[in-house]
C-alpha cells in the first residue's frame, strides 16, 4: 500500500510544487489575466458609460445580427448533424470513413480561408458573381454571406458529438422498434432522441459559442457595413480601431460572458452525460 501511494504521486515534494507552481503561474498569466482585463477595461469609464456602450443602436443591431446568424446556423447544422449521424451510425456502406473525414474538414480550414471560399464563389469576380448581380441578389457583404461562413466554421460541431455516441449505442433499440411497428419518425422521436439529447445540447452549446464568436471568416464576407452586416465581434473591432477602447471592451465583455456561460454549461453537461453513462452501465450489468 505504501508503495502504491508512493508511486501514484512519486515525485519529490519540491518537484511537485514546482510543477503546480509553474502550471498555475503560466495559466494565470496567459489565460486568466486577459479574461480579467476584459472586465476591468470595460468598466474603466464607469457603469453608465458601460450601459450606454452596450445599448448603443449600432451595438444592438450587431447583437441582433449575431443572434439571427447563430439561430439559423444552429438550426441548419442541427438538421445536418442528425441526418449525418443517423446515416453513419445506423447503416454500414462503402465510403463511410471517407464521409467521416469530409465532415471534419472545416476544422482544418483556417477562419480567413473559410470566408475566402465564399467570396470566391459569390463575390463580384466570383464564379456566380455575375449571375447573382444580374438578379440583384447579394450574398457576400450581406447577411447570407455572414450566415454561410458561420455555417461553414461550425459545420462539424454537432455531428461530431452525435456520431460516436450513436455508433456506440448501436441500432438494436431502433431495430426492436421497427419490429414493433413504429415508423421512422416515431423511432427517431421516441427511441433515438431521448438517448442522445444531452450530447445534442452539448454540441449545440459548443457550436453556438463558435457561431457567435467567429471573427476571421465573418470579417472577410461581411464588408463591415455598420448597422447592417456587423456582428458583435466585428463591432468590437470597429470600436477598437476608432480608439474607442472602453466601448470596445464593454461590447467584448458580453462575448466574454457568453464564453464563461458556455464553459459552465459545458462542465454541467459533461457531468450529466457521465452520470447517464454510469446509470446505463449499471442497467446493463443488472
Amino acid at each position, binding site marked *: 500500500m505504501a508503495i502504491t501511494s508512493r*508511486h501514484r504521486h512519486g515525485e519529490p515534494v519540491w518537484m511537485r510544487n514546482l510543477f503546480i507552481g509553474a502550471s498555475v503561474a*503560466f495559466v494565470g498569466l496567459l489565460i*486568466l*489575466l486577459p479574461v480579467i482585463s476584459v472586465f476591468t477595461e470595460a468598466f474603466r469609464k464607469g457603469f453608465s458609460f458601460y450601459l450606454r456602450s452596450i445599448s448603443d443602436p449600432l451595438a444592438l443591431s450587431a447583437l441582433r445580427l449575431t443572434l439571427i446568424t447563430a439561430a439559423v446556423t444552429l438550426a441548419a447544422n442541427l438538421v445536418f448533424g442528425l441526418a449525418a449521424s443517423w446515416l453513419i451510425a*445506423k*447503416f454500414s456502406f462503402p465510403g463511410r470513413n471517407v464521409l467521416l473525414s469530409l465532415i471534419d474538414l472545416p476544422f482544418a480550414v483556417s477562419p480567413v*480561408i473559410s470566408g475566402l471560399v465564399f467570396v470566391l464563389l459569390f463575390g*463580384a469576380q466570383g464564379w456566380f458573381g455575375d449571375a447573382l448581380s444580374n438578379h440583384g441578389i447579394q450574398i457576400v457583404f450581406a447577411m447570407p454571406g455572414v450566415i454561410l461562413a458561420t455555417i461553414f466554421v461550425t459545420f462539424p460541431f454537432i455531428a461530431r458529438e452525435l456520431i460516436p455516441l450513436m455508433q456506440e449505442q448501436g441500432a438494436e433499440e431502433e431495430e426492436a422498434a421497427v419490429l414493433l411497428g413504429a415508423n421512422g419518425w416515431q423511432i427517431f422521436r421516441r427511441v433515438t432522441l431521448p438517448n442522445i439529447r444531452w450530447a445534442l445540447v452539448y454540441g449545440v452549446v459548443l457550436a453556438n459559442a463558435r457561431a457567435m464568436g467567429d471573427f476571421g471568416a465573418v470579417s472577410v464576407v461581411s464588408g463591415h457595413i455598420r448597422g447592417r452586416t456587423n456582428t458583435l465581434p466585428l463591432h468590437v473591432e470597429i470600436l477598437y480601431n476608432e480608439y474607442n477602447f472602453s466601448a470596445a471592451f464593454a461590447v467584448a465583455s458580453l462575448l*466574454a460572458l457568453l464564453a464563461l456561460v458556455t*464553459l459552465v454549461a459545458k462542465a454541467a453537461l459533461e457531468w450529466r452525460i457521465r452520470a447517464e453513462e454510469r446509470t446505463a452501465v449499471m442497467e446493463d450489468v443488472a
Partner: protein
Amino acid sequence: MSRLRQHSVIPGFGLTLGYTLSYLSLIVLIPLSALAVKGAAQPWAQFSEAVFDPRTLAAWRLTFGTALIASLINAFFGLIIAWTLVRYDFPGRRILDALIDVPFALPTAVSGIALTAIYSQNGWMGRWLQPLGIKAAFSPLGIVIALTFIGLPFIVRTVQPAVDDLDPAVEEAASLLGASRLTTLWKVILPALQPALIAGFITAFARALGEYGSVIFISGNMPMKTEIASLLIVTKLEQFDYAGAAAIGLLMLVSSFVLLFLVNAGQWWSTRHLRRVS
C-alpha cells in the same frame, strides 16, 4: 454485424444519405474546390508572384516562425500542466482545468484586444517589460504570445488522456528496478507520452498558422515586419486581387491539410503498432 446493418430494417438510409451528401457538397466541398480551382488555375508566373514576392515571403517566415515558437512553448508548459492536472490534487485544480478551455470559448477578437491591452506599454504586463527593453505588443513577440494563448488547450487536452492512460505498473517496475524518479520521468514516462505530445504539438501548430483574430490586434500589421499570412489574404481581397488571395489561401490550406494528415496517420500507426505489441 456490419453485414446485418447493410440490409438494415431501419428506415431513412436514402433520405439521410441524400441530405448529408447534398449539404456537405453545398457548404463544404464546392466552396473548397472553388478555392482549389481559383488558386491553381492561374499561370505559374502569376501564382509564384503572389506567393513568393518579398512581402509574402516575409509573412510566411513570420507566420511559420511564430507558430513554431508558440507551439514549442506550449509543448513544454502543456506537458507540465497536463501532468499536474491528472496526477496532483491541490486547491484550485478544477478551476485550473476549466481555465484551459477559455481560449476555445473566448471569441478571438476578444482575446486579441485583451492581450493587446495587457502587453502594450501601459498595460499590466507591458509596463514591466518596457523598462527591460522588451517590446511585446506590436512586435513578433506579441504574435507569439497570442498564438501561445490560442494553442495551449490543444496540447493540454491531447496529453491529458495519455497521462491518464499510463500504466502504473510500468512506473512501479522502473522504481523497483532501482530507477530514480527523475530517471523514470525522463526514460519511461516521457517516451510513453511522446505520441500524444507530438499530435498536440502539430495540431496547435496547424491552428496557429491560420489564426487571425487574436493576432491582428497585437501584431501591429507592419508589412515585412509583423504582417501574418492570413492578413495578406484579407489585404489582397480588399484590393480585389482574388487570384492572389486564392493562391496564398491554397498554400495555407494545403499546409494545414498535410499537418493534420500527419497527426491522423501518426495516431493510426501508433494504435496499430501498440495493438501488435500487446
